[in-house]
């Protein structure tokens, strides 16, 4: 988004009001906003000069629903249908920008143009270049921003070998997580002489909390389609599949519309753009299995078989779908292809680091001020991403760790904040780039619990084929659950490390091989937290319920009754002017009292269960501070 030349998709000279309707904003009923604005524009008689359009995700999901005005680039945040009259009025010749809807920076100053918003300033959009600018359901919008020009160039001016050379020289590594050089994969697929070949786009995006692929498909499906057609041409395939997880109905819907429109324009099907290259694309839906994001399991799933990975060799580029050569790439990899073709490998390789060229897309989530989608050049440091772009930690709390790569990845502590983000440096530090999930946690997050969370997921999703993965993950999960319940034993940490090694070594596929990563990386960097849980029966973050008690400081309590009212199990003994007391034997550690106690009093504190002391007698009065009338 930020650094693009001409953003107006309007060749008709009209201005446009673009309302984000990717899943995030849509969940806040941004479609109602569009309807409301259309109504207002019509009433003001502006239909001839202003278009009101659906658009995809501009990335700053935290501030949604987002409405953009082009070509000015005005960026409105947290818009409600009730704001429609004001927005429509602003489109009049003498109309003023609706300042209250603008993004306001840390100093409270309004920022009008999105390119000036701190969140966007350091980003560079290649995969997300059209997201938030075009209507994903209108192929003409895509065409107006050089859509399918790369395809045309490929079909008229380039041989398949030249295409592969360009992709290879760009240095782009697979954005699905493994980081295998895409050019090399395509070259190997091309080499095979079997009669059928397949191109597959992996849109299974199983990492919890990741939504990079989903957003891209919802906001700019054509770039993925174009990339796949080009791949088909390059490797000599006529059939492609987009494997989308069934839990993405909006992405599937937008893809289906895009495919249909592409077919109608002769960009898919027989003799594309009048050449003798034919290519068809079909959608296949997943059915709820994380393991089907693994390439070989995915291909079996398309074949109608159970989704379980297989031994490699043979690799999929030699024998994949239906035992035919198959080139499988991630959504973001395909989305980058048209840009690489148009702007050249040299340009792409100049971005990022020598071994990790181009940009990386992250879903920045967790305890961070600006959560949403970002795209940055490889090599930017974690510190810049989290603090400059992400705006730092919510509530002014302390940064504790950043988790990258989803269930296959690891947690990196504050000492790693100056690491440049690229495939190799993250690997060396004990994590992985993965598909782009980046979760930031703060001082209130328990790292043992983070490990447990991911292991619970991986254990559930293990296909069961390999004993070390199937049983090993359960054993690891059991130990973590025991530690969190306060039943950790000496030797548990060593056992976790041993199991972790076995699981990684004995597993056939990436799920198992990387399942221990969250545990091993948290032990590496946060061993003291594990030790506190096991030896002191204490959770340093105050998060593990079995080890943490909530206690009301009698000297700070002002008897506001907020905790009394919020407690779901009536475990607070309190009344007007009377010091409140947590009844420890009733408390379920939900933390509501902790959350509602006003910061002005800060009376509810978390403490290790063993340190809870006797509260004052029930009915003790809160002393009056003001001078009594006498």
């Amino acid at each position, binding site marked *: 988004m930020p650094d693009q030349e001409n953003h107006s998709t309007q060749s008709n000279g009209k201005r446009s009001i673009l309302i984000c309707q990717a899943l995030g904003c849509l969940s806040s009923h941004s479609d109602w906003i569009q309807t409301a604005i259309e109504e207002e524009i019509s009433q003001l008689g502006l239909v001839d000069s202003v278009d009101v359009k659906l658009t995809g995700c501009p990335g700053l999901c935290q501030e949604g629903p987002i409405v953009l005005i082009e070509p000015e680039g005005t960026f409105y945040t947290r818009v409600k249908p009730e704001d429609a009259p004001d927005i429509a009025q602003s489109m009049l010749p003498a109309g003023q920008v609706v300042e209250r809807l603008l993004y306001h920076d840390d100093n409270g100053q309004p920022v009008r143009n999105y390119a000036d918003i701190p969140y966007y300033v350091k980003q560079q959009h290649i995969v997300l270049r059209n997201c938030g600018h075009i209507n994903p359901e209108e192929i003409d919008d895509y065409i107006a921003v050089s859509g399918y020009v790369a395809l045309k160039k490929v079909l008229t001016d380039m041989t398949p070998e030249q295409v592969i050379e360009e992709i290879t020289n760009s240095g782009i590594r697979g954005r699905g997580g493994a980081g295998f050089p895409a050019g090399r994969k395509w070259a190997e697929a091309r080499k095979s002489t079997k009669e059928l070949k397949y191109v597959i786009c992996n849109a299974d995006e199983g990492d919890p909390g990741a939504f990079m692929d989903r957003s891209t498909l919802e906001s700019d499906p054509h770039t993925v389609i174009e990339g796949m057609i080009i791949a088909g041409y390059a490797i000599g395939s006529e059939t492609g599949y987009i494997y989308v997880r069934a839990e993405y109905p909006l992405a599937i819907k937008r893809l289906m519309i895009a495919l249909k429109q592409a077919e109608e324009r002769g960009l898919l099907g027989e003799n594309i753009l009048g050449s003798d290259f034919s290519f068809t694309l079909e959608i296949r839906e997943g059915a709820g299995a994380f393991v089907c994001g693994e390439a070989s399991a995915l291909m079996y799933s398309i074949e109608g078989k159970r989704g379980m990975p297989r031994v490699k060799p043979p690799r999929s580029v030699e024998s994949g779908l239906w035992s035919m050569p198959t080139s499988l790439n991630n959504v973001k990899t395909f989305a980058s292809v048209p840009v690489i073709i148009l702007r050249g490998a040299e340009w792409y390789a100049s971005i990022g680091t020598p071994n990790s060229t181009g940009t990386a897309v992250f879903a920045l989530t967790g305890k961070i001020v600006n959560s949403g989608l970002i795209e940055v050049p490889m090599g930017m440091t974690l510190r810049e991403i989290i603090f400059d772009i992400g705006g730092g930690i919510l509530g002014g709390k302390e940064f504790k760790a950043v988790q990258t790569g989803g269930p296959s990845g690891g947690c990196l502590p504050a000492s790693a904040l100056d690491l440049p983000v690229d495939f190799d440096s993250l690997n060396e530090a004990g994590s992985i780039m993965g598909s782009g999930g980046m979760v930031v946690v703060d001082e209130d997050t328990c790292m043992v619990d983070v490990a447990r969370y991911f292991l619970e997921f991986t254990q559930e999703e293990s296909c069961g084929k390999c004993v070390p993965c199937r049983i090993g993950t359960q054993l690891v999960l059991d130990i973590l659950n025991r530690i969190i319940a306060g039943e950790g034993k000496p030797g548990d940490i060593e056992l976790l490390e041993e199991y972790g090694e076995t699981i990684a070594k004995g597993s056939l596929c990436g799920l198992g091989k990387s399942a221990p990563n969250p545990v091993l990386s948290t032990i590496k960097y946060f061993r003291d937290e594990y030790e506190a849980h096991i030896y002191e029966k204490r959770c340093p973050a105050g998060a593990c319920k079995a080890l943490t008690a909530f206690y009301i400081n009698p000297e700070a309590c*002002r*008897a*506001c*009754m*907020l905790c009394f009212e919020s407690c779901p199990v009536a475990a607070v003994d309190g009344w*007007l*002017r009377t010091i409140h007391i947590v009844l420890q034997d009733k408390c379920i550690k939900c933390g509501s009292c902790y959350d509602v106690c*006003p910061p*002005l*009093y800060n009376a509810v504190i978390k403490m290790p269960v063993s340190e809870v002391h006797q509260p004052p007698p029930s009915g003790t009065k*809160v002393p*009056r*501070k*003001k001078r*009594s*009338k*006498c």
Partner: protein
Amino acid sequence: MLEEELKDIYELCVNCRLCLKHCEFLNSLFETRDELVGDLESEGASPKTLYSCTMCDLCETICPSELNIGRAYLKLRQEKGPLPVQKKFIDKDQEWVLSDKFALSLPDPDSSECRQVFFPGCNLVGYSVDLVMKTYEHLKSKLPGTAILLGCCGASRRECGEDVLFKETADNVEAEVKKLGASEIIVACPNCRYALTEHERSIKIRSVYEILDEIDLPEMARGDERTFNVHDPCRARWQDEMQDAARNLIAKSGHKIEEMQYSRDLTMCCGLGGQIPFANLPLSKSMARNRAQQAELDIVTYCASCRDALAPYKPTLHVLDLIFNSEWDEARVKPAHKPSEARANQTLLRAQLLEKFGR
């Protein structure tokens, strides 16, 4: 201008909503904290909000940050002055009580010195001349050198926002006490006490209940033992000693007490405070009714206004009835006195005092 009060609210209010929940005035007029703050910011735009607060200080007591909404409205009343109907009534009333129809300063004829002055106030007189006479006589006998002063503490002026007139009236009471040569005033009404302590005074101020608790009670047929609920008048909210004394007196009279949930510092106003009957009679009656309904038993209180406010809804006694009135059983259901009765009683008391103790 409510700058200071609003600043405190912005900084210290945590939106616990306890005031909105427990105060009937706030509850009836505002749903949210923001509505209340909006009203204060617009300086109490409607007379209904501005003159409906009874100034009972419940808000300050239960507020975790001890914010006092009543004081904010009082400040606005000081800026805007009273409602015309209030002004008319109170001007007339003050004219009467400060005239020689009522006002009287009488030293103890049986003593050469004057240590303390009994100040019965106006409403207790309106309730019962007999109680005032008997109380005075008892005090005089146990504490030689007790004068009696009839007048007004200026509470109604204070509550209407006429702070200049209020100070004048209250200062005058102090002056009369000093003129009598005394250093202590014994008040019968918690309202008088509240009003007289609003400014720094160089005389000691105590309630008759604490005094009575220290001296012997008169011999009197006490009747059968009862159990009562105690209603603490709102102006006695923070006076632990007065609250204790009243309870002791009930016990010494041979009766038992059951505390209500909202008692002592959490007591609920009877609805007569703040001169609200002029501006919002329905609220006033509702508060009285609600408070009376909180009592499961007959009520004993130690403010004559509270007594009259609650009596229509539940049998209510003044604690002095239990001590000095052998017919207290009937007094429980005596109807509230009217203004004309009050005037008559005030004149009668003055005459009786002059007759008995005038020199």
